Structure formats: C-alpha cells, structure tokens
C-alpha cells in the first residue's frame, strides 16, 4: 500500500490549538472524495483525540507537545494519528466506556465518538509514557463511485 499524501505537525498542548488541528485535518481530508458531513465527522474525532491529550495526557500542562500525523493511501484510506507523551491511560477498557469520564464537566464520549465515526481505532498507551490514537476511515466507496 502506497502513501499518496502525508502531513505531520506538532503543537503546544493548549485548547487554542484544538480548532487548528481539526481544521487542518479537515482540509487535508477534503482532498478525498468526501462529503461535507464526512469532513465534519473527521473534525469531530480529531477534536476529541486532541482534547484527550490536553486534559488527560498532559493534565492541562500547556508546555507539552502533541503530534498529529495524517496520511492518505492509494486505496482512499485516511489515517489520523494523534500522540502525546503524557501520563498514559491506566485502565484503557474503562476509559473507553461511554459516559465514563475522569473529568465531571465532560461527557465521557470522546472515545465513543472516535470509534463511531471511523472504521478502525487503535489505542496504544502505557502509564508514564503517553498515548497514541490511530484512526482509520476508508473513502474507497466514494472514490470508486466516481471512477
């Protein structure tokens, strides 16, 4: 499988950068044959992944770095990787439960949204080492339909 396009960017773990990250990935995704609705869903999952890094990974420490890598392969699959080098997740199955949140002001739906609006989600985490979320979504059907 060949990578058709690839972008990697890094930014401070501050809430101001959430909109930046989702807009960048949304713009990148729009080169695929996707609908505006698809782009909105992509922006949502990026927003959730980056918010998790800031709140949970770095516990609102603004001087840490978040990395976002997006790529498109020649089968029309968009891959989004969001990584932090923060505290990691101790109990991953629990963190993935809908409505579980260690922060009472949030809905605890971050992972649920990420899982629901992509085709595949993989989370690699280790306490004290950080978390990498890898999300994949195929736009193959859309591309084939136009071919």
């Amino acid at each position, binding site marked *: 499988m060949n990578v058709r396009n690839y972008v990697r960017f890094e930014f401070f773990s501050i809430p101001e950068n959430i*909109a930046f990250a989702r807009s960048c990935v949304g713009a990148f995704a729009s080169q695929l044959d996707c609908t505006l609705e698809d782009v*909105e869903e992509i922006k949502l999952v990026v927003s*959730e992944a980056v918010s998790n890094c800031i709140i949970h990974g770095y516990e609102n420490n603004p001087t840490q770095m978040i990395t976002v890598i997006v790529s498109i392969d020649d089968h029309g699959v968009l891959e989004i990787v969001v990584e932090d080098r923060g505290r990691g997740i101790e109990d991953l199955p629990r963190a993935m439960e809908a409505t579980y949140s260690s922060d009472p002001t949030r809905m605890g*739906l971050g992972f649920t*949204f990420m899982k629901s609006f992509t085709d595949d989600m993989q989370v690699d985490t280790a306490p004290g080492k950080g978390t990498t979320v890898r999300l994949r979504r195929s736009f193959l059907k859309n591309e084939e339909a136009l071919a």
Partner: protein
Amino acid sequence: MSLEFKKVRSTLVVRVSGEMDMLIADKMRAEIDKRIDDRNIKNLVLNLEKVTFMDSSGLGVVIGRYKRITAKQGRMFIVGARPQVEKILFFSGVNRLVPLYKSEQEVINI
C-alpha cells in the same frame, strides 16, 4: 465564540455563536451559570443557530446546564441546532433530556 443573553419573563435565552469545544467550555459555563443562578430565572433556552461545531466538551456544557436548571425545577430547550450539531445531540441522547425546537418562537408558544 460569543454569547448573547435575553430575558423573557422567567426564561433566559442564550444565543451562542461559533464553535463549542474545550476552549470555550469554561467561559461559557461561567457566563451562563451566573445568570441562571438568578432566582428569577426558571427556564433556559439555548439557541444554537449560529453554532458551527460541537464536540463532547460542548456537550458537557449543555448537559451541565440541564442539570443546573432541572435542579431548580426549571425546563431547558435547545433551538435551531444545525444538522451537524443536531447529529451530536441525538447520538449522545441529549435530545431525550432537552427537547429540540426549530426556533425561539416555537418554544415561546409552548
């Protein structure tokens, strides 16, 4: 993000513009809460016509205000949610707690 407030008898109408994410969540929570804590306010109408994006942090603001207003026996309504915002409200089940209407006028006529 900007907030515009209007009081109609015992109902507080909040018109929100912009994107509802973690960046604005704290400010929005604080601005709305200091007004709904007024004992003359019983109900809350959240007008989301101009909200272009909402994630789970934005949803947290909605559900938190719902809890606060129902704790004082009031009612909450959402009006004018765009399709992408409406999808999030339905997906999370928030629509089962907070009814959605097309316009402020529709709610006022209830």
